[in-house]
């Protein structure tokens, strides 16, 4: 297993992905899940929003030269981002496109958990702050946004906004235990004891 990677801060160019209830079928349509690896998914992120049936660009923000940037990216989103299907292909596609963290009003539960297992912080901010940040970025996107998991802040062009995330997620990112495999495997004896206590595995199993 890999080394522990502590994620205290993510810094990168922001990209606003406006809209409430953006579902994971939008983020990555099911037809791109017919593969046994996650490789190459970055190319298809939001593909049906970005391109029409003939492959012509629809002028989506991800294809807008104003928002082009190298290095890590931070997505700005609204409410209930990532709802619907549990497909990890959605955060994998975002990650492979370059998104290393998300800042938004709220996130769907399964999507939030999937991002966390990949070390992608999803931090929440007040509606007014998210809208202000989106407007600031749309006006002048050529600056880095800093999401500070430790300090629970986001800073853009000198303005700092408070952000929140569940204490457990923050702790996992800071301690580097967001990839849970290692920690779960540490308790094998306790796992076996728990199984032995469950009547459906010990008493009336078939």
């Amino acid at each position, binding site marked *: 297993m890999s080394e522990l990677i502590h994620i205290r801060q993510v810094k990168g160019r922001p990209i606003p992905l406006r809209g409430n209830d953006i579902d994971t079928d939008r983020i990555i349509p099911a037809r791109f899940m017919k593969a046994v690896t996650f490789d190459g998914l970055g190319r298809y992120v939001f593909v049906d929003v970005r391109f029409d049936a003939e492959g012509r660009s629809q002028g989506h923000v991800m294809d807008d030269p104003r928002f082009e940037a190298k290095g890590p990216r931070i997505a700005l989103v609204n409410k209930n981002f990532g709802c619907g299907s549990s497909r990890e292909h959605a955060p994998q596609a975002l990650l492979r496109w370059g998104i290393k963290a998300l800042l938004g009003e709220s996130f769907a539960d399964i999507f939030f958990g999937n991002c966390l297992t990949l070390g992608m912080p999803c931090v929440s901010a007040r509606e007014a702050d998210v809208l202000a940040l989106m407007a600031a970025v749309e006006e002048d996107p050529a600056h880095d946004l800093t999401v500070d998991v430790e300090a629970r802040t986001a800073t853009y062009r000198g303005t700092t906004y408070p952000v929140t995330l569940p204490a457990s997620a923050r702790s996992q990112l800071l301690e580097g235990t967001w990839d849970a495999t290692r920690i*779960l495997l540490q308790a094998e004896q*306790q*796992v076996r004891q*728990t199984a032995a206590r469950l009547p459906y595995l010990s008493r009336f199993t078939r």
Partner: protein
Amino acid sequence: MGKSLLDKVWAAHTVRELPSGQTQLFIGLHLIHEVTSPQAFQMMREQGLKVLFPERTFATVDHIIPTDTRRRPYADEQAEGMMSAIERNCHEFGIRFFNAGSGEQGIVHVLGPELGLTQPGMTIACGDSHTSTHGAFGAVAFGIGTSQVRDLLASQCLAIQRPKVRRITIDGALGPGVYAKDVILHIIRRLGVKGGVGYAYEYGGPVLERMSMEARMTVCNMSVEGGARLGYVNPDATTFEYVRGRPFAPAGEDFEAAVAWWRSMASDADASYDDIVRLDGAGIAPTVTWGTNPGQAIGVDERMPPPEAFAADERAVTEDAYAHMDLKPGTPIRGTRVDVAFIGSCTNGRLSDLREAARVARLGHVAPHVKALVVPGSEAVARAAEAEGLDQIFRHAGFEWRLPGCSMCLAMNPDKLVGRQVCASSSNRNFKGRQGSPSGRTLLMSPAMVAAAAIEGAVTDVREMLGD
């Protein structure tokens, strides 16, 4: 103060509290399918991990398989590759695989219950958001991502945050022609698609108590569409009778011991909840979605709501939905022309769903411009339906009778909408592009309502067709 089922099941399966504050939760049943597992097995290989409890994971194939022929290799090379991968992975890691043609294959959330794998008081996880279906048995069941599938294979556990619990009581009784699908669409309409974020939904009250297990599964299945990662119904006599005699269910004296334990896991009468909602069952009509999320739904006798009827921050989503659907606020949903009718999916692909749809199919013939598909949820459902002659009823009425799979619910197999087609669908998601065409349009409704729409060629009120 008493405890809820969630409290009890969570406590029984807690291995330890992790330093982060999450729970290391033991998972009693792990179900896998071909789409979200291959990367997990690859990670297992790369990280040199072994499956800790191979006897607690069961596999099937449902998402990508064609429903017209089972001939191998599949015409779609990618689908064939995924099929070969799950066969190889199950063989290599010692996992029981219910393969196509075995007589046991089916949609993972149809198969678990019908084999008796799904039981009250269990924790159940699967790399599929509709794992909430299994909550119908009083199990704590939820969807996970692929990295978590790897964690679960390796440790039989997940690192997870305990949800809050919202009790949803449906009082009264449902009218004729109103089904479990209408109940859950109504709940989501009232509480919203994000109302359940952070919650488990406990469904109860007279309407749920009177429901069959299959109906309860339909309700729990769509919990995730309301934002709740899991939903459940407390186990009762209906639950126990359903489980009795199934291949993986406890038998003989063991069964009685199991029932005693299952009963003890139900929520106490004085259980405390983080929130309580009451809705009236008599006020629920056959419900149809008009938009691009499952909360955008109305009774079949209503007019589509104007964007101004929604909160300011919902208007953009509403206007966008109308633009995609090409429907007009203020007009009735009834009469909306449909091109395709799909009956099936983990929401509504069980025997009782097919029976209700067949009751309607008997009354007419599919309209000439409509392509209508019936896709049973599993090989066992198909067998039972054929034994009753339901396949013949559907065929005579102009429906195609297909082989089991997820099919047009998410269109990972050849069953897809084309262009701007409108589909009356018994599935669970009306997201843009969900049924295989980026510009395709989905109207969610009960299987009986889909059958009625197929015959009428347009959305209609099944209550009138049935003469209730």
